[in-house]
């Protein structure tokens, strides 16, 4: 039984057809990377899975919670289901989105206390466990404004983990970071992958994708063009569009060095 199953997902922004019939599933313990040009719909796909964007049409299943959307506004029952989907999916954003008015530890316990009704006394040790995991126990009582970009993103990862989600989703987690800070975030993500965390990662970091992912999905123009193990996708892609994308990426990376 997959942890995430998306069936024939369509998303329109006005007349713009951004997702054109996406179907995909993620198994428990699997690390799946989604790559593709900007504007190909990768981020929108993630944001549809936890309903930050409402799909126009299609079926989303997360951990046996299912929502069927057919061009209608969500019913109150469906809204409740989406909230439970959000509780079971951790989301890490490109722009971190830490709560600036809360200290690091309060950022972490906010959702467990407010959403799950956990006691503070129970939430704090849990939060500290994940803070230690991302290596930032010493920043426990700092405010986000005093952290570097890499530290902010690691706190954001810990914040999502503190809800103990079934699956972690990363939306270009290193794209807003200075190059020298990318490594520390990727290291944390590698650690999570090795521990068997289920992960769905939208990324431009091909090194990470080829090293850590079990499966790579290449998206173009709102569709999944091809998917497979990273070795196969990166060395002998079947589709010319994938080949073109990878070629161009390699060339720009080479010219940057």
């Amino acid at each position, binding site marked *: 039984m997959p942890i995430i199953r998306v069936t024939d997902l369509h998303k329109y922004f006005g007349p713009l057809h951004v997702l054109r019939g996406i179907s995909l599933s993620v198994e428990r313990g699997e690390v799946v990377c989604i790559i593709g040009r900007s504007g190909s719909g990768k981020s929108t796909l993630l944001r549809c899975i*936890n309903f*930050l964007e409402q799909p126009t049409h299609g079926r989303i299943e997360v951990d046996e919670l299912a929502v069927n959307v057919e061009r209608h506004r969500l019913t109150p029952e469906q809204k409740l289901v989406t*909230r*439970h989907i*959000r*509780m079971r*999916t951790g*989301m890490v*954003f490109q*722009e971190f*989105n*830490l*709560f*600036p*008015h809360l200290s690091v530890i309060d950022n972490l316990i*906010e*959702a467990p206390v*407010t*959403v*799950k009704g956990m006691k503070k006394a129970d939430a704090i040790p849990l939060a500290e466990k994940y803070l230690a995991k991302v290596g930032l126990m010493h920043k426990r009582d700092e*405010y986000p*404004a*005093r952290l570097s970009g890499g530290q902010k993103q690691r706190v*954001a990862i810990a*914040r*999502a983990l503190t*809800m103990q989600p079934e699956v972690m989703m990363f939306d270009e987690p290193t794209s807003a970071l200075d190059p020298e800070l990318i490594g520390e975030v990727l290291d944390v993500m590698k650690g999570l992958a090795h521990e068997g965390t289920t992960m769905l990662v939208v990324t431009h970091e091909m090194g990470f994708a080829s090293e850590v992912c079990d499966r790579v999905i290449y998206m173009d123009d709102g569709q999944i063009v091809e998917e497979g193990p990273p070795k196969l996708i990166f060395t002998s892609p079947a589709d010319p569009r994938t080949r073109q994308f990878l070629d161009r990426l390699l060339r720009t990376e080479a010219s940057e060095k």
Partner: protein
Amino acid sequence: MATQVAIRPTLAQQILQQQAQAQRAFAVKVIISWVALLAFLLFMFSSVTIQIGPIAIRTIQLDRAFIDKYWRYISEGAIETLRICFLSIFCASILALLAALGRLSRIAPIYALSTFYVSLIRGTPLLLQIFFFFLALPQMGIVLSGFIAGVVALSLNYGAYMSEIFRAGMQSVGKGQREAALALGLTQSQTMRRIVLPQALRVVIPPVGNEFIAMLKDSSLVAMTGFVREIMWRARDVGQSNFRGLEALLVAALWYWVMTLIFSAIQSRLETRLARGDR
């Protein structure tokens, strides 16, 4: 090479020193000018006549005995003024918050109620509103004391003006904040209460302080309905019955100025403290 490295910091230090000196000199000049202006203002009320050739410059003559006698009586009105203002700014903030939420609502009647309220209040004078609550509501069987009518009018009036402040405050909280909260499973109202509003309030507090300072003086209009024993009412009370209107008003003016100075100082402190929290 070594000399270059040594010279650079001293040059920077020199520039910084010069800048600091210039700032200090400016501040001293400002203080001296303030003292001079204050002295001139006091001189205007000294009842002295200065003869320069054919021109006689006469200053304003004040009845010191009257001021000594009624100083305390008028001053005690400051407590009532502050009571009115604290109560009104509190109610006005709640109204402003509701109006701002209404203004951001996508439910048509709620949006309409909010914009109608703001338009009506901003389109009529405060003095008229104060009289309205004092005069019109009794016809509906609701008799308000001058104090309550004043607080209601001030609250509604300032609530309408402050709704823009609250709206801007809420809009200053980025979309990413809401998304992060929702993605963690918070409901819409939890997101508003726990994430958006606390951040918006920080933005809102300094301008609300400004509104409070403006209200200190607008509260004098409440005296027009009679029987609200704040500064202005007391000043007019003893001023008119003793034919010493000017003296009484000057005592009132002094109090308004002093209160404004005090609250401006508090407000600017608050502003720097809140700004520091962001760094």
